């Protein structure tokens, strides 16, 4: 009684194939049996799938066949459409065969190539599809036997959906294939003409474009008559000369406006359609940009006069927008962001300057520690560390890397890079660890932080530099900040991961013995997360090194600056040597840290 559940209608093949296929059941019972016995031959074609595959596939819900058929047909037909496209061009060229030998040869070649390809794709593709269709349908039948959710039977709803998909995809694609490449300028001119006419219509009190053209025509005719009258006078006074110039300007301006109006009037529906759907996404809206505003912090004279030396205030400088300038959504938004960054920079100058200062001071101190420690001491420390935590082979590698830096006289520069990495990593740890812990503990914070971290990791590292410069200027401190933003995600993520990975049962045991939340974190979760945290630290250091190179673009000193320099001067050798030095520094740190990590996880 409690045996396997029985499912209606599918226990027997005889019953289940008709239940699945619904129509042409005898045919599919036979076909499926052949496929299952391995007796299906390549020339056993499914005629419906061969002739009208989209309808067959859609109503039976074999969407794989549907999409493959669509792809084959569109590809084949697009090739054939080239005949429609180049046919008229060939005819035109044939009108004058002597001057067009090159064109005639080229068009004929294209037409025959595309024609043959199209025919082969269509015919071959359909034949192949016809022979595969039953196999795919059989595979679907097998999946249906496992799960009821798989499409089965014949449904009108799916047929309608298939036709809808075809109606959206096919015609516009085929139409595109018959058209030559669009001139981008033409679409832009359409928009410009539209905007100009829109502005001119109320100005000249015209109700339609026709009236507008008439108005310009009469204005021009009028002015031309006056000009003719003046010209008839022969000798002109200075006053009359200037009047003639004025009239000429009127003629020029109005003719140009008339041309614009006429060109707007002659835009056909086809032109609009082409610009809207064929190539690029059309420009939906253009805006008049807001007035350009600059915020600037200047000494506050009043307060200084009142005795408060060093007082400053934010002033606003507004410049008028360029007459008639219209921008698209992208430019409008980008300029808006510029203005707000500019405002924040001026408003919170104290904060940004203080941050810059703290960063600079700590950087200087670490730099001093690295650069003013005699090189034998630093080298010795590196070798001792690797000797203590790694194997002899790695120690030899570390020693040779140090020798490389020394021989090529890159020692001090490498130490500068290290200082930058150390400061950035320290900040990453101090910020990343608590954030990671919080993330592990709070579900909602995790939901919020995870996408932010993903964005931080995926935004191209160069684009960090721009806002860093905007807020903090050009020099080492913004380079540190950009490096921190780039390098902190693994620290945060792996801390959270390490804590989340602690088995529920272990935490439960700790609680059962009376641990408080703090004790749970300090005595159970953090110690057990240490391998993961160390992995995060390692990644953070590697990322910091790579970013330290890139941030040379905004004035970070060190090996990166050498690379940037050689990029500017196209000195490949210099760049390569500096690059190798960076790689060696990275690998040294990585190997030593790995050794330390391994010694941690052994306990």
């Amino acid at each position: 009684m409690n045996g396997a559940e029985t499912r209606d209608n599918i226990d027997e093949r005889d019953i289940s194939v008709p239940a699945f296929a619904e129509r042409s059941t005898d045919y599919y019972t036979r076909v499926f049996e052949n496929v299952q016995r391995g007796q299906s031959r390549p020339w056993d074609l499914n005629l419906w799938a061969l002739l009208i595959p989209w309808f067959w596939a859609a109503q039976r819900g074999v969407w794989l066949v549907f999409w493959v058929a669509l792809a084959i047909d569109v590809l084949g037909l697009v090739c054939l459409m080239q005949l429609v496209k180049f046919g008229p061009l060939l005819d035109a060229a044939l009108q004058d065969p002597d001057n067009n030998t090159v064109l005639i040869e080229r068009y004929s070649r294209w037409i025959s190539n595309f024609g043959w390809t199209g025919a082969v794709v269509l015919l071959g593709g359909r034949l192949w599809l016809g022979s595969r269709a039953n196999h795919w349908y059989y595979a679907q039948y097998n999946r249906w036997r496992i799960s009821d959710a798989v499409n089965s039977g014949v449904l009108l709803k799916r047929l309608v959906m298939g036709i809808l998909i075809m109606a959206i995809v096919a015609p516009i694609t085929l139409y595109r294939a018959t058209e030559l490449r669009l001139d981008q300028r033409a679409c832009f001119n359409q928009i410009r003409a539209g905007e100009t006419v829109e502005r001119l219509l109320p100005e000249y009190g015209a109700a339609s474009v026709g009236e507008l053209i008439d108005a310009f025509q009469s204005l021009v005719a009028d002015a031309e008559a006056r000009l003719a009258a003046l010209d008839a006078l022969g000798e002109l006074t200075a006053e009359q000369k200037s009047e003639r110039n004025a009239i000429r300007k009127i003629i020029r301006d109005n003719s140009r406006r008339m041309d614009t109006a006429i060109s707007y009037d002659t835009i056909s529906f086809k032109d609009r359609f082409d610009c809207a759907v064929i190539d690029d996404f059309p420009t939906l809206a253009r805006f008049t940009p807001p007035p350009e505003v600059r915020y600037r912090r200047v000494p506050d004279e009043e307060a200084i006069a009142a005795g408060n030396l060093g007082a400053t205030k934010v002033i606003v400088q507004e410049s008028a927008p360029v007459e008639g300038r219209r921008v698209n959504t992208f430019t409008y938004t980008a300029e808006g962001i510029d203005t707000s960054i500019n405002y924040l920079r001026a408003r919170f100058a104290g904060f940004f300057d203080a941050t810059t200062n703290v960063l600079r001071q700590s950087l200087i101190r670490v730099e001093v520690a690295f650069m003013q420690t005699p090189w034998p001491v630093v080298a010795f420390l590196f070798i001792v560390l690797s000797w203590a935590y790694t194997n002899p082979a790695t120690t030899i590698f570390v020693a040779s890397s140090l020798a490389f830096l020394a021989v090529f006289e890159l020692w001090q520069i490498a130490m500068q890079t290290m200082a930058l990495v150390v400061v950035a990593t320290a900040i990453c740890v101090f910020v990343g660890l608590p954030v990671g812990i919080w993330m592990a503990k709070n579900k909602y914070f995790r939901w919020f932080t995870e996408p932010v971290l993903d964005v931080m990791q995926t935004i191209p590292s160069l684009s960090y530099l721009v806002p860093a410069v905007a807020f903090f200027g050009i020099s080492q401190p913004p380079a540190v900040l950009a490096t921190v933003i780039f390098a902190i995600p693994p620290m945060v993520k792996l801390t959270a991961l390490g804590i989340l990975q602690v088995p529920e049962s272990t935490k439960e045991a700790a609680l059962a013995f009376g641990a408080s939340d703090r004790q749970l974190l300090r005595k159970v979760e953090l110690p057990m997360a240490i391998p993961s945290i160390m992995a995060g630290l390692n990644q953070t250091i590697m990322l910091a090194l790579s970013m330290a190179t890139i941030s040379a673009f905004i004035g970070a000193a060190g090996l990166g600056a050498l690379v940037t320099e050689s990029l500017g001067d196209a000195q490949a050798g210099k760049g390569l040597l500096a690059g190798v030095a960076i790689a060696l520094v990275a690998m040294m740190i990585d190997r030593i840290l790995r050794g330390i990590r391994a010694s941690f996880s052994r306990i």
Partner: protein
Amino acid sequence: MSDAVVELEGVWKVFGERAQEAMAAIRAEGLGKPEVLERFQAVVGVKDASFSVSKGEIFCLMGLSGSGKSTLVRHINRLIEPSAGTIRILGEDIGAMKSEQLRATRADKIGMVFQNMALLPHRSVRDNIGFALELRGMDGYHRAQAADRALETVSLHGYGDRLPSELSGGMQQRVGLARALAADPEILLMDEPFSALDPLIRRNLQDEFLNLSQTVKKTTVFITHDLDEAIRMGDRIGIMKDGEIVQIGTAEDIVTAPADDYVADFVAGISRLKLVSAAKIMVPPEKFSALNGPLSDAAHPEAAPTDDLDTLVELSTGTDLPVLIKDAGTLVGVVNKDTLLHGLQGSSEG
């Protein structure tokens, strides 16, 4: 019971986002499990559980996986909050405790052993055992001493400086037991402590634990899915099914008088030799005489009512005479071979 150490009264646990609503509906309308699941998407984990464990007693909770026994035992140290009902530890309502008091109770009064050991992999065996003491702020010196004493009780002397991963499963579970004993708690909660071990080691540890509890006299709640283990270990046994305790009693009660078919199914395969006493199967002398004629004057083997079937089998083997069951010299019943065989089989006669 005045000397009850652990007392549960009408404990319910409903899991789900709408547990409170579901609980209220259960109270008001007496809904069953399927209705609760359908109406509130809530699962009844424990259904109206009540029992008490007296001092020094080993109480076994037996049930198949998913019967709610592990959930129920976690209510005792409030790792899980009940949806309804009260739990008293040494007379104190654990549900009413503030968090500081609760942690003190967990650390000082209750030791827990887990099926998967749940030792801290980064700490030595000694530091694992001293964990509860460390949480209470005991200094390292006394902690190490207590840990070594606990190691000695579980016969793992000298393993204090190993890491848990260096020990076999059986040894790790001894460490788990030592950790639970280190703070010398009143109560031991054992959540399927020996289930993950292979049969030989399991048997070994069961014996050792029984010996140990003879000496340390801890009040113990012992979870198992193995009826044999429950019978070996438990002074009393509670049988759980679908979150409900269906029967509580001694091994003998459960084997001789199963409360329902479910329990009867369970005990069907259990050997009754050591479980059932003569009192349960003996026939009163008058009835015996009426059926079989008067007893002869020959030297009948004699036994007490508390003697188990094993003893009776032993007595009956050398002779054809029925065994006389005498309580303080007076004849209270008779067991002949038919009665004895029926008793062994489990079918009651007449």
